[in-house]
């Protein structure tokens, strides 16, 4: 983390807790990471690990309890409402369910143009040509799609429209939360390829949140693995997948199923399921399911520390030595 250029986004010790009746859900507990201009950071983990909450806390949809979200030199958590609205135009988010993210009764042209109508003082002509360019960029024919309603489109096409809407403001940072999870594989591949193209074309920085390990690997330069509100491991993606240092990463990778009957079936089976974030285990949160856990894991919270270039792990007994 020392030799990197100034990050576009820097998350520092982020905590997001929700009240649920008398209990507190510790969704995100002390997450820190940087995202450098032009890179794609993948965040992967199982349901309830806090990956989506982290994404939403970056754009302040969820208000962090503490911690800083420094985007382009400004701490978003310190801004007033009106300042935040303005700053947020530089960050756009794409959600999982493309169909319910679009208003079914509005025309595609209007959906994509809305951010412009709010923020830019463009003439009608300029606005129309920007929308047309954007629709073309995501692979839709503006003549055919522009005047149709969102309800007329399939999931894959709706996701293209969502991407067009997100990019029309020319954001610096794009946060994709499970953006291909509800799509069929054949369509998923189209959208992933499109994302790579657009990232190159517009010089985007991307945070790609998903539960699918293979999808995350495909698009990411670096990957962070989360478990119960904390980051267990961060590494360049090829390194993380070939040399996992955290026992959880290793187990996660070995339980992924490959479309290949000859794939090695020697799997590390985790027993049980992730504990509740309402009452997480003391010390290392993974220790209740960890095959390597010892007494120390219950007492001390493992800090994220470097075990290789760009490779950090939060474990007292990592699988690789520094």
């Amino acid at each position, binding site marked *: 983390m020392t030799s990197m250029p100034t990050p576009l986004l820097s998350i520092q010790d982020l905590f997001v807790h929700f009240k649920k009746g008398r209990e507190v859900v510790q969704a995100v507990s002390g997450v820190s990471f940087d995202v450098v201009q032009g890179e794609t950071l993948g965040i992967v983990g199982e349901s309830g690990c806090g990956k989506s909450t982290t994404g939403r806390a970056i754009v302040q949809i969820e208000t962090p309890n503490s911690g800083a979200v420094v985007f382009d030199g400004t701490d978003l958590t310190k801004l007033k409402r009106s300042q935040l609205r303005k700053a947020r135009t530089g960050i756009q988010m794409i959600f999982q369910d493309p169909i319910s993210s679009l208003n079914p009764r509005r025309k595609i042209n209007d959906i994509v143009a809305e951010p412009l109508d709010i923020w830019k003082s463009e003439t009608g002509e300029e606005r129309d040509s920007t929308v047309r360019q954007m629709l073309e960029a995501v692979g839709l024919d503006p003549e055919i799609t522009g005047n149709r309603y969102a309800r007329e489109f399939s999931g*894959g096409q709706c996701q293209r429209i969502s991407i067009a809407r997100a990019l029309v403001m020319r954001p610096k940072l794009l946060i994709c939360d499970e953006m291909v999870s509800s799509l069929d594989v054949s369509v998923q591949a189209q959208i992933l390829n499109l994302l790579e193209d657009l990232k190159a074309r517009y010089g985007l920085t991307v945070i790609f949140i998903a539960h699918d390990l293979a999808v995350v*690997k495909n*698009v990411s330069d670096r990957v962070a693995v989360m478990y119960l509100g904390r980051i267990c491991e961060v590494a360049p993606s090829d390194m993380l997948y070939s040399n996992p240092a955290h026992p959880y990463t290793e187990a*996660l990778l070995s339980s992924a*199923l*490959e*479309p290949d009957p000859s794939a090695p079936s020697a799997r590390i*089976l985790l027993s049980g399921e992730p504990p509740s974030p309402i009452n997480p285990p003391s010390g290392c949160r993974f220790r209740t399911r960890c095959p390597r856990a010892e007494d120390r894991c219950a007492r001390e919270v493992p800090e994220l520390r470097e075990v290789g270039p760009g490779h950090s792990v939060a474990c007292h007994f990592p699988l690789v030595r520094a």
Partner: protein
Amino acid sequence: MTMASERSENFPIHDENPGPLLKVRDLRTTFTTPRGKLNAVDGVSFDLARGETLGIVGESGSGKTVLSRSIMSLLPRSGLEQSGSIEFEGIEMLSATPDVLRTLWGAKISMVFQDPMTSLNPVVRIGRQITESLRLHTGMDKTEANAMAVSLLTQVGIPSPEQRVRNYPHQLSGGMRQRVMIAIALACSPRLVLADEPTTSLDVTVQAQILDVLAKLQEERHMSVILVSHDLGVVATRTDRIAVMYGGRIVEIAPTDRLFRAMAMPYTKALVASTPRLSQPSHVRLTAIEGRPPDLVHLPKGCAFSPRCSYATDKCHSEVPPLTASRDNASHLFACWNPLPSTPVAITTTPGSSAS
């Protein structure tokens, strides 16, 4: 265990009659919708052997779920038209009366659904949801059935089952609920279990556990299983045979190893190629299939995949290819006018170079 002996009396483990457990012939299931007739299953035929696991793979709208519900006779009657034949242990399912179906459901055929939260009754303790079919089909009394429920929960890997039988579904996690679903489905030792996307709503680490439980119990009980999934990874290592569906039809069916070694249908190959893999390096460009799955109300003429297929010729656009056996392997069938060469070659061969 006195229970075991009683159970085997009620459910002889060894079937006397040989031959396939399930025979599906030219099954067509259509629904009348406001947009027109929807051909959800469009002429599907296959056999399922006793003890066999058949994987059915396809994208949304390929007809895989309607097919499994047709086999189970679980489809809503309104607007439904069916033809062809589904023969299960000599019983024609399509013409079976509700009374006959009730004796089969749970006892001989059962189903594990995708979403355990909505499939379990939220206001009934899980113990009773398991014993319900046991008492109905086997005439066990309450104590016997309760003991059986505890034993089933143990078998599906639920810790402290004596306490768990008194829980309601909301007190269990997603993985635990799916285990309960499996326990309910297997309670009466059915001959056939239809598992429709059984792990889709679960996390990867839990998914592996559930598939293992299902495989273990299947082996112990010599059941046949139809595993329906959109995920090639789920079926690749857990099945004896795989049927690939597209546009309501089976487009390729083969023993699992053979399918992955020598896929003949371009769609199967494209499906595999568009799936990102852990073994590939980052930023590999995926081979996407252009376009999208067909509209079942307006199926394209000829082969349903032809509008998206890079090998398609005029014939593909006009005539439906029949499901025929491969020349070198009678158990490998595919529906394609221009099949990929069946030589099990290395991945380095470019598809373009093999075009005749």
